[in-house]
């Protein structure tokens, strides 16, 4: 396949060249790709030495990188992960809401997405709650909110997130600590008063 023919790769190039519109175009593409991979995971449901459901984002990147010949290009990967984090957030929140609305549905991507959801919620607690909290938090604090998104939904390191946001690592760390403190306070997890696991029960 011609590298240029992959629309995701094209968008990433444009993003690297500073084309802000490209990110908006990329989001739905990555969203669709994640859902597609989740669906194929369900069909090839073989645990053990195979793909973990949670590796969706990674799988999407590998696929895209292979098609675009970009494996190893650090910037490309970070930009991709940044978009993927947002796409992943949408996929998961939609899925979580669907699941709440209709306890049992016919969604083809249900099982692997459930696994991703459970996996992330093991770290974050109720993901829909976190999502809504982040939306409110982002009004006054867009950059720290975005940082949380990149790390929680995109699995990025603080360095990668700093690169994606175009800020220094020190600023990113400060943003992170602030966001985390606010979230912890809002979730009622004040110092010494319990753990996220308790919230789960």
């Amino acid at each position, binding site marked *: 396949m011609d590298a240029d023919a992959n629309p995701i790769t094209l968008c990433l190039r444009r993003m690297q060249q500073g084309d802000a519109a490209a990110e908006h175009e990329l989001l739905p593409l990555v969203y669709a790709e994640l859902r597609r991979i989740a669906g194929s995971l369900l069909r090839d449901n073989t*645990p053990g030495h195979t793909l973990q459901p949670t590796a969706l984002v*990674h799988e999407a990147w590998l696929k895209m990188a292979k098609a675009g010949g970009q494996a190893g290009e650090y910037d490309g990967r970070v930009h991709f992960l940044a978009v993927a984090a947002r796409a992943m957030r949408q996929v998961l929140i939609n899925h979580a809401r669907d699941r709440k609305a209709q306890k049992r549905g016919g969604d083809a991507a249900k099982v692997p997405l459930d696994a*991703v959801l459970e996996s992330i919620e093991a770290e974050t607690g109720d993901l829909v709650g976190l999502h809504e909290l982040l939306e409110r938090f982002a009004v006054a604090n867009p950059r720290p909110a975005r940082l949380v998104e990149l790390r929680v939904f*995109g*699995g990025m390191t603080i360095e990668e997130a700093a690169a994606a946001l175009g800020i220094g690592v020190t600023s990113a760390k400060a943003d992170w*600590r602030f966001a985390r403190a606010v979230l*912890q306070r809002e979730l009622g997890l004040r110092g010494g008063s319990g753990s996220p696991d308790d919230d789960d029960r």
Partner: protein
Amino acid sequence: MSPTQRIFAAALALDGPARAAYLREQCAGDERLRAEVEELLRCDADARYLDETGLRSLRRDLAGDDEPLPERIGEFRVLSLLGRGGMSVVYRAEQERPRREVALKVLASQLGGSSGRARLLLEAEALGRLQHPGIAQVFAAGTFRSPTGEQPFLAMELVRGVTLQQWAQAAPRPLAERIRMVIAIAEAVSHAHQRGLVHRDLKPANVLVDDAGRCKVLDFGIARLLDLDGDAARQTRHGELLGTLAYMSPEQASGDAARVDVRTDVYSLGVIAYQLFTGALPIDVATDALPRGLRRIAEEAPRPLGEHDRALRGDLQTIVACALRKEPDRRYAGMAAFADDLRRLLARRPIEARPATALYVLTRFAQRHALVLGAALAVVLGLVVALVVSVQAMARVDAARREEVAARERSEREAAEARRQEQQKSEVLVVLAEVFGSSDPQVNPESRHQPMATRLRGVMERFEQRFRDSPATERAVRVALASALVGRGEYADAIPHLRRVLDALPPGPPADDFQAFVLLAKAQWRLDALADALATLDRLAASAPSLTPQEDAAVGCLRGQVLWKAGRRDEATQLWRRSLAGIEHAVDNASAGTAALLRSSLATALFEQKQFDAGAALVQSAIDDLTKAYGSDAEETLTALNSQVAMLFGQGDFARAAPLMEHVLRVWTHVYGEDHPGRVHVLQNYAATRLRLGEVDAAVTAFEQALAHGEKAFGADSPELSPVLANLGNVRWQQKRLDEAAALTQRAIDLRLARRPEPDRLLSGYYYDLARIRRDQGDDKAHYELAQRSLAIRVAALGPFHELVLTRRHEMARLHDKHGRRRDAITELRAIDEQVVAVLGAKHRAAIDGARLLATWLLDDGDAAAATPWIDALTARAAGTAEAAAAKADAERLAARVQPAAR
């Protein structure tokens, strides 16, 4: 940046009094702001939300790990990444000494200091002692220093194969093959159990199947090593539990680690078996949130296997249900007991999964009995089972009626009804036990020599009295008795019972009626009352509109056999084909057996058309399946073997046919005794093989035995005797004992004409035989007349241009000529010539001779113009054959006659 964040960020860099001073200064007067920042700082200091460990795991899960492979782990050189789970990473690695490739599993868990390491090594040593072809061996264990600390690893046998699930989906696997796979897994796990090791995490992903279809159980005891028993929360955290929850035992689901023992593995294998047999999970927790999933596993009863597929009802359902019981005490005590029951199932012996009540043993016994006896009985599949079913069906009807009654009254009546049914069942049992126990030829050899009907008389009298007020029971017992009678070949005695059930008694439950119809049709078929048999099957079709595909095919098989006997061969063959197509892909035993019967029947059709090679292949595959479905000594299997003898005969392979025939005769007589009607056909084929081997005396003896036996079994006027009579007549003809031969053959014809006048090849053959005898007796007129009748019948049966008809028509042309009817002779040859060339080939003797005769006869008529093309045809057709020279000479002679005629 908000003021809060700005102050928070700056304060982070300070501590103690400096921070306090900074806050006081920055928030001058704004106590709310200061309180907020202070609280946030407290939250930051006590950060328990989104800690870096958790985020690292998220990063690995979501974004993948770009970390390069470690070069070495312990003494192992890492070659590639095989896979990554939440709790472990698996590498393909190379061991130096001994040099071999291994699967190296690095466990994510931290070990608690030196005691943890000691425990790991101890466990690994125990695992290393597990040496079984069905278990992936553990070679070594140890720890190594990784960036995150001291990490344990295990070096295991590198297994190349697919997971059990992939194996099951890669190709259609017959049920028996899937059952054998479960047995193999059970055996492997049992080996570990005997050494005190429990797997704790059996699931399809942990069972690999290699190319040869051998299973390998992976990751023995790993769950214990990781301390995962009952630690559902911990596993979920790593996204692993969702894949394994479905296979988790109730004791594990309820976190009761102390109760985990070998029966935990029994449960998990039960789940695997359930999934292998039905394609579904017993309790599908995939869409459940974790607490609900755990609760369902601990509490919910799975759907019985039979609800997925009717063919899975019965013992297999019982066995799997036993493995899946919630209480470990009520499960199989171990893998051996589980595997043993599956083996019993495959061997059709009583299983132990439930208390062996009298009814249960009898059910199995009767099932086996029914399977062993009688082609149509394949349909019946256990008469007592059906009996119980019918009692249940009755209960359902009653239940519907009772809906209208008031609740209290209903429960009283229900109790009474239940008592009545129990009573009835046990009464039925007594009768059945008396009858079956004493009359099954495989159980009681004595019974072979005594007609069952004789011994039954006393029993039946008692029985009729006892059940005067219970028509439903009477019906069930009569069906059961008739089934046994038909199985023993006592057809005439079975019919009154079946008529009673179908005509005299009030209509019964569908299961009874179905059996009664099928048994009646079979008895009628065997007694040669073919029109009656067809009428019975028509009645069945009208009264039982919804049959399972297997029942449908079995009825089709039987109807085909009736049609075949009635000479309606094409209809029969088509019906068999259609019936076979209907069940070809079914996997249950009953369908496999019926399909094999159908193939065996179709083989007969091929034999009839002299397609011996195709027939032999078909009958061979039928024999294999029949042996599996019914056993090697069942009537169906022996009948198919008998057909195989016929095929070998047709192929001219007498060396193989003769010993096989002796085997069939020996087993048949041993199992079914001297008096079973089916023995007539076996004896007859045996005689034919002797004859072919040149042992004329032995052949005559066997034919005479068959005849005497057939007269007793079918009556002296039965058309069943015709083939024996004709064969014996043929021998006598060869011995030049022409009067005897004529009498025998004439009787064969008479019996056929009286009861079954339909034209078929056999009847035509009898006339042909008789014609030859008359010819040798010097009666040319009778010869000519009988030969014409034989041909007419043959044309009616096979059509005018069948290969077996064309040669006879050719002969007939010569006979016409011999008897002074040259015109008819020419007409006949001209009528068939085109088809002779098309069907038999231009080089066939009949084609060459036909050209010669036509040329000669047309020249005799002086029609040289018409004769010339036949002279050319004679040369052309004979070219390259053994007759070429003679034909050329003939053609030249004939051509010489053309010249003067033309002049």
